[in-house]
């Protein structure tokens, strides 16, 4: 009997190990290792071959002595190109700028929404939040596409402005930075509202009552009580918008003009149009370097939130 029990407990232990190991190994192989490969290939040289990059590690045979040596070739030209060419630097700065504006716009629209929903009748909060999340379930591509019809010359806004007489001819907002701001704000808005709502909903309403009783004006109470207490939500929401927005590709490609430079587009073009895999890898590594601090803050905030629960 005791043999059976110990066998089962061993099985239990094994089961526990397997539960951890399956997702762990999957993520290790398909998430972490790929980054190391990208890092490696960013030091490689672009060649005309299949795959189009030179191997980093090779065996060098010395003809005279007959010994073989391990040869590792590290090529820094990709990084020199990234720092030497204005195109890449401009693309980086512009990506950060567009992501920042998007984050601020999401915050400006999302904060009042989250606040209003958190203050609504408890029975209505669920459906109201559902309405915020619902567009997220419909295709991202389709939602971007919807804006093309609205923003283009002779599109909905253009026709509306002409009809009301504000402008005399068709207006084109499409293919500009503004179109990208609108499209990205539209797509990322739910990511901002969700964490904001969850912090605002948890807030104790008696704190505001106490502030009011002590003669604090609503605006001041908001600035000194609500805003600081909702800071974790603001940080989480901003990071959820900012980090993916920096590397965004689809929105600037479809709504932006040819001069709307973003690093995601540069990476895409290096890879698909120029077939220069090593430079594309270098761009990816540089993009990760920009994002590593925000991602670590995000990890920290997520981890702390998980521990609080």
């Amino acid at each position, binding site marked *: 009997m005791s043999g059976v029990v110990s066998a089962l407990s061993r099985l239990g232990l094994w089961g526990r190990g397997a539960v951890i190991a399956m997702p762990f190994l999957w993520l290790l192989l398909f998430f972490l290792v*790929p980054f190391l490969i990208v890092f490696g290939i960013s030091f490689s040289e672009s060649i005309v071959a299949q795959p189009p990059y030179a191997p980093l590690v090779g065996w060098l045979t010395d003809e005279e002595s007959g010994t073989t040596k391990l040869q590792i070739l590290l090529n820094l030209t990709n990084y020199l190109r990234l720092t030497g060419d204005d195109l890449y630097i401009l693309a980086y700065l512009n990506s950060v700028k567009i992501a920042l504006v998007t984050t601020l716009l999401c915050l400006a629209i999302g904060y009042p929404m989250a606040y209003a929903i958190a203050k609504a009748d408890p029975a209505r909060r669920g459906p109201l939040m559902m309405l915020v999340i619902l567009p997220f379930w419909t295709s991202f591509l389709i939602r971007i596409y919807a804006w093309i019809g609205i923003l283009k010359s002779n599109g909905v806004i253009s026709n509306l402005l002409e009809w009301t007489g504000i402008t005399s001819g068709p207006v084109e907002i499409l293919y500009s930075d503004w179109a990208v701001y609108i499209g990205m704000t539209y797509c990322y808005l739910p990511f901002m509202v969700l964490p904001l709502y969850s912090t605002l909903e948890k807030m104790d309403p008696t704190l505001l009552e106490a502030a009011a009783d002590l003669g604090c004006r609503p605006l001041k109470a908001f600035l000194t009580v609500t805003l600081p207490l909702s800071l974790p939500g603001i940080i989480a929401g901003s990071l959820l918008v900012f980090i993916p927005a920096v590397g965004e590709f689809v929105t600037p490609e479809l709504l932006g003009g040819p001069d709307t430079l973003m690093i*995601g587009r540069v990476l895409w073009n290096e890879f698909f149009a120029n077939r220069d895999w090593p430079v594309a890898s270098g761009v990816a590594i540089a993009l990760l370097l920009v994002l590593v601090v925000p991602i670590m803050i995000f990890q920290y905030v997520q981890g702390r939130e998980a521990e609080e629960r």
Partner: protein
Amino acid sequence: MKRIGFLSWALWFGYAFLYVPIVLLITYSFNESRLVTVWGGFSTKWYGELLNNEALLAATALSLRVAAVSATLSVILGTCAGMAMSRFGRFRGRTLFGGMITAPLVMPEVITGLSLLLLFVAMEQLIGWPDGRGVTTITIAHTTFTLSYVAVVIQSRLAGMDGSLEEAAMDLGARPAKVFFVITLPIIAPALVAGWLLAFTLSLDDVVVASFVSGPGSTTLPMVIFSSVKFGISPQINALATLMVLVVATGIFVASVVMARQDRQRKRDEQMAIQGG
């Protein structure tokens, strides 16, 4: 009073911002005219054309298959990950594990796509697998980035669940595996459904990662939409979008009704159990 006014305005503005584009999109799918934004009368002809577009139908079938398989895989792996993070306490590599679960949530798609492609190419050179790129590589890629979302959903459900039920079963001598299948799994079932639907939707929506890791002959629906949108807008895409919105809305509606009913049932059962005991 004035502040409440501002808030409801903000709320209405937000909802209008979210929904007006979708409503316009649907409206123009019934437009007779080929010029999408010029109204030429009511027509359903674009839906008919949609059904004759073979390339589109093939891509839809492929996307649905990839989405179903990758969502199932990521629910299995995501549930394991969620259990490990919220029930197993400290174990070696927990910090790295947690990092690998949260990082894909915010990782720009171009990086995920490029890095997975380079991995597949390197693996093919080393061990000869995967042989070329296609459905298998897209499925693996989608499982990888949707797995994190599922893990987060499961983890938050497990955190909100009463742990004493599992402890009671354990005290009564149930083995961990039995506790999981008899107690934990039925309770977190709604989260599993939500996680599966989320993974399915994310997979069905992805154009960037799929473009990197797909091969000739494996074009997904978003890839078809993306390339045709790049050439301008067409009423056929509007019709397709309307169908997609309709399917999603129905799915969400059914899922939420079923979940609400199950939730009520569960609360009733709990009440009965308390009264019975």
